[in-house]
């Protein structure tokens, strides 16, 4: 098991390909400029990443045109995207893919529909998102405000109409297809058949939206929410690696800065007040790497524990790294023109996404038999 905590050679190759592309196409200045443009998502970059490098179809089985890879490879991509705070719908697309895979394997729904969507996703033709608030943690028994009419469907049992509202959905703006949990089942709705309203978000590089369904036609994908729970668990596991990448990038830029910034005739990085905090951050990040790798390498019940640990730990480390990045840059770190704020906003949002650290600790308490009272 312990070798699984390292990176394999193919994983390093994938990392290099993604890193090269991002260096070329997602320099932070352009990421910042895009946040105030009409197109908050970089759809061109996503096309190259998703279709060109094959990131969109990583988890999709080879017989459906994907790479047949595991969460481990997806996690390496997430690390690089975290380093760049890249405005692409990778995590949302991964969540939807994981949901489709779980639905396909559950045998409790329409495998042909799942297969068809997975094929399109792998080919880079379509992007899917799960219509659920981004803050939902994997453990919650989800009760949304979307309902299905008529129930039971009268003519075609696979057709239904969805009405209701979901708020703060991640990566749904650039999506073509929405996977919508409603009344205990999961439906596929064309994004064009729903009303999506962008939200002004804390993290400007991942714009959320509110979604309104008004008698929108939907096809049933799966009965029951089990695939949803599995998808959120996979997403939370991969998010930990995004947080790791973000933290690494914050540490790297901060270390570079404190070596060059001089005050009182010395590099500010020569003062123990900063040195020791940066060393502590490095220790935290070394730990984050181990727990993030473990979260994407384990399975079954062990994965549930591993993901809760990874989310509780990596969320906190990413926030700490981004906060130290702002503080140790001093005045320049507080400006709009410096990228530190992009990392701070992403880190804080990501710590709430898919469940806050406290939420994951509470979940752990149940999992490892340490009840509150």
């Amino acid at each position, binding site marked *: 098991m312990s070798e699984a905590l*390292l990176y394999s050679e193919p994983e390093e190759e994938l990392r290099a390909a993604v890193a090269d592309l991002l260096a070329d196409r997602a320099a932070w200045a352009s990421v910042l400029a895009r946040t105030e443009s009409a197109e908050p998502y970089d759809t061109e970059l996503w096309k190259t990443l998703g279709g060109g490098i094959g990131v969109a179809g990583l988890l999709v089985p080879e017989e459906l045109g994907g790479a047949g890879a595991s969460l481990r490879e997806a996690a390496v991509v997430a690390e690089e995207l975290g380093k760049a705070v890249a405005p692409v719908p990778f995590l949302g697309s991964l969540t939807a893919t994981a949901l489709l895979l779980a639905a396909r394997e559950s045998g409790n729904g329409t495998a042909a529909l799942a297969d068809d969507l997975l094929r399109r996703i792998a080919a880079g033709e379509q992007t899917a998102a799960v219509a659920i608030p981004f803050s939902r943690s994997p453990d919650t028994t989800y009760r949304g405000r979307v309902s299905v009419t008529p129930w039971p469907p009268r003519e075609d049992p696979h057709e239904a109409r969805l009405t209701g509202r979901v708020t703060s959905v991640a990566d749904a703006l650039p999506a073509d297809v929405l996977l919508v949990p409603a009344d205990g089942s999961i439906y596929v709705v064309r994004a064009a058949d729903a009303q999506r309203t962008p939200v002004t978000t804390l993290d400007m590089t991942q714009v959320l939206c509110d979604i309104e369904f008004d008698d929108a036609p939907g096809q049933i994908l799966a009965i029951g929410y089990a695939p949803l729970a599995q998808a959120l668990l996979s997403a939370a596991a991969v998010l930990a690696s995004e947080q790791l990448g973000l933290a690494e990038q914050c540490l790297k830029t901060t270390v570079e800065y404190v070596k060059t910034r001089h005050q009182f005739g010395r590099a500010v*990085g020569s003062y123990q007040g900063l040195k020791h905090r940066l060393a502590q951050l*490095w220790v935290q990040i070394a*730990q984050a790497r181990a727990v993030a790798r473990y979260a994407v390498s384990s399975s079954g019940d062990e994965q549930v524990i591993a993901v809760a640990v990874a989310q509780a730990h990596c969320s906190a480390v990413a926030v700490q790294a981004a906060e130290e990045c702002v503080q140790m840059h001093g005045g320049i770190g507080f400006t709009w023109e410096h990228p530190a704020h992009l990392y701070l906003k992403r880190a804080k949002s990501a710590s709430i996404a898919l469940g806050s650290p406290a939420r994951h600790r509470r979940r752990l308490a149940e999992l490892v038999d*340490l009840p509150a009272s």
Partner: protein
Amino acid sequence: MPPLITQHDLENRIQDLLAAHDPGTTSRLDFLHARFDAGLAWLHYPPGLGGLGLPRGLQPAAEKAFAAAGAPDNEPQRIGIGLGMAAPTILGFGSDEQKQRWLRPLWCGEQVWCQLFSEPGAGSDLAALATRAVRDGEDWVVNGQKVWTSMAHEARWAILVARTDPDVPKHQGLTYFVLDMSAPGVEVRPLRQLTGEAEFNEVFLTDVRVPDSQRLGAVGEGWKVAQTTLMNERVAIGGGAAPRESGMIGVLASAWREQPEVRDPALHDRLLTLWVAAEAARLTAMRLSAQLAAGQPGPEGSAAKYAFASLNQQISSLELELLGEQGLRYDDWTMRRPETVSFVGRSPGYRYLRAKGNSIEGGTSEILLNIIAERVLGLPGEIRVDKDVAWKDLPR
């Protein structure tokens, strides 16, 4: 180049040894001697010195095979300083004669080793140490005081760093020796610590004669030699993979589970936060050992030691607080001489007190953070006012 030994050959050699020296009928020491002579002691050591020049990664499998056959071990916890610090230094800097003389009885546990490095006036700043060694014919005459010496009261040999030239800057005037603890002029006194017991000793050296043949490395090269010892110390303290909830967090978790009456909602999130931190530290140690096995040694060793010190202190502190009235009691202040340190099996108060040493022994947490900041992150070093000053002119 010697022929490569495969995993299969190794298994055969182990089985051959076990067949020729049945652990059930062979005396403990005879078996260990035979194991050493067959090169199956420390596999990564050279042939003739208890090894076969194999990768370190094969050692755990060999230990398992011997344990499964009921073979006696060399009580590694009792001879940790010899195995972990003295041996790699002797291997790295000793002459052939020195290696032949010391390594076999060291590994077999016949001779216990201790380390004479720290002094009352030289802790973190070890290179400032004041114990003097003065050349006299074929011998050196040693005078000084060492401290924090585990096993000194049982040791036959010590690794010693002493000042041979006070007129040059501190790092340049040191020389590394092996000292016979049974020689006249060596006095060992227990050093009682705040837990009530004495794991360590003070060692007073008065006109102790050390033959020049017991010098390791050149005169004035003692600091370089000592680096080898200290690097190995940190690997020994930080490393290792353990099951979930081993160590202090397991004790705390058991207390929470088994004594519902002490559960306090206000402490619950702190408990879980520490549980997560302990699990993160455990997985990091696991990743570190995978890196070492894959031949990618990382600087995570210093990080692991730092993290465990901080964790142990926080966990033991919460345990006392959680236990309330029980936390007011202490098991035993009797002065004792434990051979090994175990946090389990003593009262929570002991754990709380003993953990205070974790951030001091083997490199203080502050020094470890300096090391990470400077060697890993490449941040500027501390300002050294003593760098170019003769040792004798330094304020002390």
